Each structure stands twice: as C-alpha cells, then as structure tokens.
C-alpha cells in the first residue's frame, strides 16, 4: 500500500538531490526512506542519480585516502610529543596540594581560626619582594618585541566563542622563540605564561608580535590579574558598552593602565573572602 508521499513522488516524479544523498547516507527517517526506496524501484532516472552520487563519493574517498597516505606523517612522533606534554601536566597536578585543608577533620571554629591565621600570613607574604630568580626578567611586554597584533573579528564571534575552543596556549615552538626573544631561554618556564597581549577572545593573533612571557607569581601585575581584565573587556564588548578595536587598543597600549581604568583601582582587585585568600595562599610557590 502506497503512502501519500510515495504517491506524490510517483505522480510528480523524482526525488530531490538532498533526499537522494540523505537516503544514501542513511539520514532519512524510516517511512520516508521506504517511500524513496520504492520510488527508486520504479524510476530509472532517480536510481541512476543515486548511483552517480554513490560513485562520486567512492571516487572522492579513494582520492582523499591516496593523498593522505602520502601526506600524513606517521603517528609515532606526535603521539610521543602529546604523551610528554600530558605527563608534564600530570606531574604539575601531582605537585600541587590536593585539598584546601591538610587535615581530614576540623571543627568549624578551628577552621575559622585557621582561615584567619593563614589570611594574615598571606597578606604579609603578598607584599614581599619578588624573588631574585624572577626579578631579573621583564614583567611587562617590550613594545618593540610585543606591540600587539590582532586579526579581524566580529562582535558576534567574540560573544559566541566558547572559552574551551579558544587557543589559550601558544604552540611550543612559538613559546620557545618568545623566551629567546626576551633573552629568557633558561628561565623556569613553569613560572611564566606565554601570554597573548591582545587576548584571542578579542581577536588577538598567535604571533611573536602578540606574545610575551608573563610571570604567574611574585609580581603584583601577573597573568591571573590580566585574566580578570580580559574577562571584563569581553563582557563590556558583548554588552555593547565597548567596541572591539578599543578593547584591543587598551590591551596593546598598556594593560596595567587599562586595568586601573576599568577596575577604578590602582592595585589588582582581590577576592577577599577567607576561602579565596586561603586558596591563593596555597598557590604561592
């Protein structure tokens, strides 16, 4: 018994190209698929078109396979590289303390006292001078080396981008070149983020002209503080209060001054809750 759509197919002839391909790819629902199969049984033209499509797909896939056999390098090297980079991350994680409290059980009052004591220690330590090892390196981007560089990007792209899909980590070869350019080839790499002067979320390019080694710790204006500014600028762009070019220029002209302007504060704004202070304390090297 013919369904109405099948009768329509027979009467008016021919399946659309979209549906032929959907049929070939198994992307049609059962009823529709059966209707079209029935039509192919009676219509040589559509059946030929379906076979043409299938042959085209076969040719294209063979062609791609031949090309990739000769173009794609073996996996051994890249797999070893990925393992090494993952191992570094695993070790980094293992080196960090696992929990906020080192003791399994603390009463609420003891925990409160503990928090207050550590907060005082933290506030004192936060004012300590930078260590000798890190003090010898530049903490601000050098304009000649890192003037900032951006690619064309729309507000829609900025506001629709998912932070997990944005490249936050520069390629290893590029990172190495940035360290060398800043005369820091032997610097402890784990203490620095090779950061984008103009953040990729706002169209910052992944080039030497937009990257510099920014310290995580031991300076007031560190990578974590800059992250706050980047989030603020993106929010302002997405809420229509700031255009993208101004946000890019604010970052490239001097992000510290921009921070002070946008946060209306001469010093980085800290989260002053006890838990945040405690957490920050444990993040100190």
């Amino acid at each position, binding site marked *: 018994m013919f369904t109405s759509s099948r009768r329509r197919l027979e009467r008016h002839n021919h399946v*659309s*190209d*979209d549906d*032929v*391909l*959907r049929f070939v*790819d*198994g*992307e049609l629902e059962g009823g529709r698929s059966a209707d079209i199969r029935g039509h192919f049984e009676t219509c040589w033209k559509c059946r030929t078109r379906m076979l*043409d*499509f299938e*042959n*085209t*797909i076969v*040719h*294209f*896939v063979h*062609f*791609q396979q*031949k*090309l*990739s056999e*000769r*173009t*794609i*390098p073996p*996996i051994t090297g*890249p*797999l070893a*590289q*990925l*393992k090494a*980079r*993952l*191992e570094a*991350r*695993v070790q980094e*994680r293992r080196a960090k303390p696992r929990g906020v409290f080192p003791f399994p059980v603390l009463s609420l009052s003891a925990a409160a006292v503990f928090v207050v004591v550590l907060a005082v220690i933290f506030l004192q330590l936060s004012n300590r001078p930078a260590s000798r090892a890190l003090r010898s390196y530049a903490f601000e981007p050098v304009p000649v080396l890192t003037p900032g*560089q951006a*690619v*064309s990007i729309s507000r829609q792209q900025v506001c*629709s*981008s*998912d932070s*997990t*899909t*944005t*490249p936050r*980590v520069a*390629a*290893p*070869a590029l990172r190495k070149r940035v360290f060398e350019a800043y005369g820091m080839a032997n610097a402890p790499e784990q203490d620095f983020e090779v950061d984008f002067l103009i953040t*990729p979320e706002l169209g910052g*390019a*992944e*080039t030497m002209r937009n990257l510099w080694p920014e310290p995580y710790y031991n300076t007031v204006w560190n990578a974590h503080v800059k992250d706050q500014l980047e989030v603020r600028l993106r929010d302002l762009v997405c809420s229509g209060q700031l255009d993208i070019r101004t946000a890019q220029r604010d970052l490239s002209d001097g992000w510290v001054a921009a921070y002070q302007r946008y946060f209306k504060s001469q010093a980085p704004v800290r989260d002053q809750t006890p838990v945040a202070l405690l957490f920050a304390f444990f993040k100190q090297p």
Partner: protein
Amino acid sequence: MSDVPDSVALDQFVAVRLEETRSETLDHIGNEVTALFSEFRGRILRYLICLGLSVQDSEEVVQEVFLLLYQHLRENRARTNLRGWLFRVAHNLGLKKRMGTLRTNGQDSEYFLLATDAAPSPEEQVLMKQQQKRLSAVLGALPEQDRSCLYLRAEGLRYREIAEVLSISLGSVAQSLARAVKRLNHVYQQ
C-alpha cells in the same frame, strides 16, 4: 542511522586503543586522551589540511585540541559526543590558525594538500595531477560551508554532528552536501 550512542561507541574503541597506548606515567584521563588521539589524530589532521593549513600547523593544532580535551575531561565536563567536540574545537582552532597564517604570509595556503602531493609512478602522477587540477577547481569554487560539510562527512561524521561542528542547521548540512557532491559528480562525469 546508527542506534549506538556515541559515548558507548567511543568507550569501545578507547578500550581497545588503551591497551596499545597505555603509559604508567600518565593518569587515567591522560591515557584516555592518548587513546583518543590514536583513533582520531589522522582524521582531524586530514580535515585541518583540507581546511587549508600546512601539515606542520595542522599537527600543532591537533596537539592543542587534545591538550584541551585533557583539560575538558579533567574538569568533568560533558562527555556526550566527544567526536563532535574534537572536530568542533579543531575546526575553530584551525580557522584561527589559518587566519593568523593569512596575516603573516599574506597568502592563502588552501589546497596545500592537493598542490604538494607527488605520485610515485609517472602514469599515476599524470592521472593524479589531472584529477587534482579538476578537483581543486571544483573544491575551490565551493562555498566554504559546503567544503567543510564535505570533508567532515568524509571523516565519518553524521549530519547532526556536522551541524554541531559548524553551528548550522541539519537542513543546511543536507543542502551543502548535496551541492558539493553534485559538483564533484560533474568532475567524475567528464
């Protein structure tokens, strides 16, 4: 259409790959990521090359994709349709990389793959070059969306996965693919 959920299908081949790639120095998620890398690296690399990136740039993007995957899984984020996630992240990073290359070099490296291949025998070389030339022309004339749909489908993605990767509707995927296949069909008909 396959009734097997992506997560189940993924778990099956991850289990197989895990035996081949397991490392004592990695944690569980690290081993899972390397297993997924073994399974998907070739497909993602090929897609990125087809997007117009050089092999070297594509390798770098693939590394970034899997480092982001490690971060993604470590943070206990969604595991549904990881294949779609991998291609979506690769697509976005690939476009950014290509944009950067365009700015740096001032030229489009698209169709790098088609232009640099060398066939081993003279006959094959001639045949391949003729076909390359025709294909390059047709692929180059396709709208970017149609081309991306074609390459993603060639890597085994279902229509709904392609729609997610490119952030377009299911109907647009079907139309793009039909257009692309029809134009390629003309090449093979000649």
